[in-house]
C-alpha cells in the first residue's frame, strides 16, 4: 500500500490550514458576541464589531469552509478516480496562495476595505485572487476526474462538479463592480437590482459552499467510515438535480417585504418551499444508509457525528423554507432568530460533517488510528451542547424581539421603544457567549486530537522505516 502517491501532503496541508483559520474565525466570533453586550470591548479602529463581523463570517466561510472543501474534495476526487492529482504542483501552489489570500482578506477587512455585500465583502484585488484559486481547483478536479479508472462517477463527484461551476458563475457575477481605487469599488448594480443580485449570490453561497460540497463529503465519508453501502442511488439523482435546479430561484426570500418587485418575492418563496424536496431526499438517504445497521451507533464513534450532522441539515432545511413564508418572515427577519438559524447550519451541519470527515481522513493518510476516541466523544458533546444552547437562545430572543417590535396599542401607537426591545436581548446575548465558549472548548479538543493523531502517525513511521 503506497498512499503517498495520492498527494496526501496537499490534502493534509489544506485540512490543517482550514483548522487554523477555523480557530481564528471562532475566536473572532467569541469576541463579537462579547461586543454585543459589552461595547467597551470595541477597540477602534481595527477591532470594532462592524469591521470584525465580516472577519468572522469570511474567516469561517472561506478559511474553514473553502479550505476543507479544497482538501477533502481532492481526497475524494483522487480516491474515486483511483489516481493522484493530474497537477500536483499546481495544488501545492494553490495551498500557498490560499493561505496568503485568507490572511490578506482578514487584514483588509479589519482595515475597513469592504464591498458591504454579505459573503462578498472582499475588495476587487482579493476577488481576483479568489477567482485564480478557483480556476486552479477546477483544473485539477476536472483533469483528475477525466483520467479516472472507474467509468461510473459516484454521487460525491457530481456534487463537487456542481460546486465548481456554480460558485464560479455566482462569484463572478455578483462581484462585478466599478473600481474606484486600489481597494475600493462600487457594485455595478444599484438599489433594488443590487439587492437582487446580491441575494441571488448570497443564498447560493449557502447552497454551493455550505451544502453541495458537504453533501459530497457526507455521502463519501459516511458510508466509508461506517462500512455501509449507500441506501439509494435513485434518491441521490433526485436530490442532486432538484437541488441544482431549484436553489438559484430562491434568493428573494431574503428580501421579503423590501421594495423588490412582488412577483420576484413570490417566485422566490415558492421555490424556497420546493427546496424541502432535495434536502429531505438527502436526509432520508442518510438515515436509511445508517438504518441498515443501527448498532453502528454503539460500535463506531463517528456514527453519531454523521447522524447528527444530517439531522441538523434536515432541521435547517425545514426551518429555512418556513422562514421564507411572508407571515413568518414578518416576525423573525432582522432579529436574532437568523443567527440562531445560521449557526445550526454552520456549527451543526457544516462543522460536524467537516470534523467527522477529518477524523476519518487524518488517521488514514497517516497510517494510524485516531489518537483518542474518548477525546472525540468529549469534542462531540461539547460542540453539541454549545451549538444547541446558541441556537435555542437566539430563537427565543429573536421571537421576543420580533413580537416586541410589532406590539401596538389599541390606537395604533407602539408599545415599546427600540431601546426597550434591545435591553431584553442582553441576558440571551450573555448566554450566547457562554455557548460559544463551550463550542470553542469542544473544537480545541478536536484540534488536539487531530494534531496528536498526526504525531502518532509520524512516530509509527519512524519506528518502522520500511513504511517510509
Amino acid at each position, binding site marked *: 500500500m503506497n498512499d503517498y502517491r495520492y498527494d496526501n501532503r496537499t490534502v493534509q496541508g489544506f485540512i490543517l490550514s482550514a483548522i487554523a483559520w477555523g480557530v481564528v474565525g471562532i475566536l473572532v466570533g467569541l469576541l463579537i458576541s462579547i461586543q*454585543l*453586550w459589552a*461595547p467597551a470591548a*470595541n477597540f*477602534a479602529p481595527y477591532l*470594532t*464589531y*462592524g469591521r470584525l*463581523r*465580516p472577519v468572522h463570517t469570511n474567516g469561517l466561510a472561506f478559511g474553514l469552509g473553502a479550505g476543507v472543501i479544497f482538501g477533502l474534495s481532492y481526497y475524494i476526487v483522487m480516491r474515486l478516480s483511483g489516481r493522484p492529482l493530474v497537477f500536483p504542483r499546481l495544488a501545492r501552489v494553490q495551498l500557498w496562495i490560499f493561505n496568503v489570500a485568507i490572511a490578506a482578506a482578514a487584514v483588509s477587512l479589519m482595515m475597513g476595505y469592504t*464591498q*458591504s455585500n*454579505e459573503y462578498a465583502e472582499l475588495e476587487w484585488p482579493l476577488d481576483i485572487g479568489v477567482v485564480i484559486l478557483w480556476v486552479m481547483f477546477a483544473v485539477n478536479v*476536472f483533469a483528475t476526474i*477525466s483520467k479516472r479508472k472507474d467509468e461510473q*462517477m459516484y454521487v460525491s*463527484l*457530481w456534487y463537487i*462538479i456542481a460546486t465548481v*461551476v*456554480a460558485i464560479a458563475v455566482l462569484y463572478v457575477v455578483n462581484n462585478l463592480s*466599478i*473600481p*474606484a*481605487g486600489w481597494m*475600493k*469599488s462600487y*457594485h*455595478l*448594480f*444599484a*438599489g*433594488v437590482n*443590487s*439587492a437582487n443580485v*446580491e441575494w*441571488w449570490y448570497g443564498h447560493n453561497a449557502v447552497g454551493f459552499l455550505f451544502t453541495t460540497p458537504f453533501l459530497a463529503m457526507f455521502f463519501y465519508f459516511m458510508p466509508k467510515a461506517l462500512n455501509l453501502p449507500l441506501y439509494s442511488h435513485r434518491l441521490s439523482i433526485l436530490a442532486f438535480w432538484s437541488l*441544482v*435546479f431549484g*436553489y*438559484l430561484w*430562491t434568493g428573494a426570500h431574503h428580501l421579503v*417585504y*423590501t*421594495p423588490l*418587485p412582488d412577483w*420576484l418575492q413570490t417566485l422566490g418563496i415558492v421555490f424556497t418551499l420546493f427546496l424541502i424536496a432535495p434536502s429531505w431526499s438527502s436526509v432520508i438517504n442518510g438515515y436509511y444508509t445508517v438504518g441498515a445497521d443501527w448498532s453502528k451507533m454503539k460500535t463506531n464513534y463517528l456514527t453519531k457525528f454523521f447522524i447528527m450532522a444530517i439531522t441538523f441539515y434536515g432541521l435547517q432545511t425545514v426551518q429555512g423554507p418556513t422562514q421564507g413564508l411572508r407571515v413568518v418572515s414578518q416576525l423573525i*427577519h*432582522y*432579529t436574532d432568530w437568523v443567527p440562531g438559524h445560521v449557526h445550526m447550519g454552520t456549527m451543526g451541519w457544516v462543522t460536524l460533517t467537516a470534523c467527522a470527515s477529518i477524523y476519518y481522513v487524518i488517521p488514514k493518510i497517516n497510517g494510524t488510528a485516531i489518537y483518542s476516541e474518548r477525546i472525540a466523544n468529549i469534542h462531540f458533546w461539547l460542540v453539541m451542547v454549545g451549538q444547541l444552547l446558541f441556537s435555542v437562545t437566539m430563537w427565543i430572543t429573536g421571537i421576543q424581539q420580533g413580537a416586541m*417590535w*410589532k*406590539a*401596538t*396599542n389599541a390606537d395604533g*401607537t*407602539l408599545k*415599546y421603544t*427600540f*431601546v426597550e426591545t434591545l435591553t431584553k436581548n442582553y441576558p440571551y446575548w450573555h448566554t450566547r457567549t457562554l455557548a460559544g465558549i463551550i463550542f470553542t472548548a469542544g473544537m480545541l479538543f478536536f484540534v488536539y486530537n487531530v494534531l496528536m493523531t498526526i504525531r502518532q502517525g509520524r512516530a509509527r513511521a519512524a519506528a518502522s522505516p520500511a513504511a517510509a
Partner: protein
Amino acid sequence: MAGEIYRKPITLALMATVAILVGSIVTMAYPMLRADMHPKLETLRPFTPLQLAGRDIYQREGCVGCHTQTIRPLASEVARYGDYSKAGEFAYDHPFLWGSKRTGPDLAREGGLRPDGWHYQHYANPQQMAAKSNMPSYGWLKGRPLDPVEVAAHLNALGMVHPELKADPAAVKAALAGKDELDALVAYTQQLGHAVQRRQGGSANLDLENPLARDTQAIVAGKKLFTENCAACHGDEAQGTDGVAPSLIDDVFLGAKGDLPDGAYFAMIDGGSDAKPIAGRTGDPGGGMDAYGKTGQLKKDEIWSIIAWLRNQKGHEAAEGHDMPEAEKKP
C-alpha cells in the same frame, strides 16, 4: 441513456450549468432588463461629495452589520420608523445597504429625525444618549481628514453610470474644506430617506385645549416626564441647548416669533418635525424632533402633562424675567 451522463464529467458539468442558469436567468438576469428594477424618484438627489464620503465611512465601519435601511410596509414598522421604503429611493446606492440584521434601529428615515448636534454627541458616545446602547463609539472619526482626491475618484467612478455625480477635483476640495470624517458621516446620516416624507401629516387640530391645564398633579408628572425624555436636548429647564434643540419657554416657536396655542405643542410632541406643516411654520430645516406620540413613547395624557408643566415653567421664567423677549415685556 440517462445513466450515460454519470460517466461523462464534461457533459454532467454542462448539464449542471444549464440547470443553474435557468433560475439565474429568470430571477436575476432577466429582471435587469425590466424598468421596475431601475426606478428613481423625482425627489431623489445625488450624493454631494461630503455625503458620499460619509457613505464610504458607513461602508468601511460595517454599520450595515447592525443597521438596516429599508422599512417594510407593516403597520408597526411604519409607526416606528415612518413611511415604508420605495424602490425609487435607492437609484444611487451601489451597493444597496438594506442590511439583514437590526441590532440597532432602521435608519432609512433617519435624515432629519434628529438635529446634527445630537448625532455628533451620539457618535462620540452612544451610551450618553441611550445608556443601554451597544453601539460602538465613533468619536475617533473626529479630526480625521478627508482626502479630496480620493473622494473625487469615487465620485467619478460612480459618474461612469450616473453622469450627474461626476465632479472636478477643485470643486470637491472646496466642498470638503474644513470637514472631517465625522462631519461626513453626519452629513450622510442626515440625507437618509430625503426623497420621501417621513410621515403623512395627519389631522392635528391646533384648537385642541389642554384637559390637564393647571392641574398640579399633572404639572409634577410633566416635569418628571420632561426630565426623562426631553431634557437631554431641550435642557433641564426647557431653556434650550445651542445647536441641539430650541428653547420651549421663549416667544419663538419653530423659528418664528410669536407663541402658538397648546394644540401646536401637542402636534409637535405627538408628530415631531413632520407635524410642522400643521403648525404652519418651517422651524429648523434639518428637523430633529421625534414623534413621541405617534411612535408610542408617550401617551396622550403624558403629552398634555408635559405641556401643562411647560406652560407653568413659562410663567415662572416670565416672572423671574429670564429670556423675556421685548415684545412680551411691553404690555
